């Protein structure tokens, strides 16, 4: 049974560029959440997708957007990249949106130069 898979695992971008990160949830899960983990810090909630709609959002600017597809997979898009966007981006899936029991992927490491 495949867990949460994320791609790419590592990528390097320059300031002002745009990036798309992808996530496939654990089999049977219908909800996807995204978190940003800066070096040496705990993960910060970006947003949650359920039934192809953004259901909850953390304190992140509109440059951060997402999408959920009918097969429950998800994308995170970040526009106009800043140096401060360099972080590990974690995708988590769950069965239902009202649970704290999340299954996390290994993350996508984004470096902005």
């Amino acid at each position, binding site marked *: 049974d495949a*867990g*949460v898979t994320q791609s790419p695992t590592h990528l390097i971008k320059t300031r002002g560029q745009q990036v798309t990160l992808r996530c496939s949830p654990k089999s049977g899960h219908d909800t996807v959440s995204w978190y940003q983990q800066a070096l040496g810090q705990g993960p*910060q909630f970006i947003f949650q997708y359920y039934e192809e709609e953004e*259901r909850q959002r953390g304190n992140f600017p509109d440059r951060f957007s997402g999408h959920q597809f009918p097969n429950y997979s998800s994308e995170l898009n970040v526009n106009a990249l800043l140096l401060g966007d360099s972080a590990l981006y974690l995708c988590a899936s769950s069965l239902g949106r009202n*649970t704290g029991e999340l299954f996390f992927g*290994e993350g996508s490491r984004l470096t902005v130069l």
Partner: protein
Amino acid sequence: AQSVTQLDSHVSVSEGTPVLLRCNYSSSYSPSLFWYVQHPNKGLQLLLKYTSAATLVKGINGFEAEFKKSETSFHLTKPSAHMSDAAEYFCVVTATDSWGKLQFGAGTQVVVTP
């Protein structure tokens, strides 16, 4: 609003000795609390959860945590550390009005020495 404070950024223990990771929480609502573990180059994994049932919660790999409302604490313990316990541990809170939006602490790095 809810938040958690992990009182130690680093903890070093000898193999076979007890582990104590301290966490205090703040919540306007009746909180749900979790501990997650992050091993190097691995995804975060749920260790245990408290959701207003028993105050002493048992998790995987011999870990347990006790919810103390009077002290607003949710400390994580293990009687005997193993080398495989070396990892980063996060205390996490969520509120009943925002399930699924986890608020992570800053983390405690655990080092286990032989």
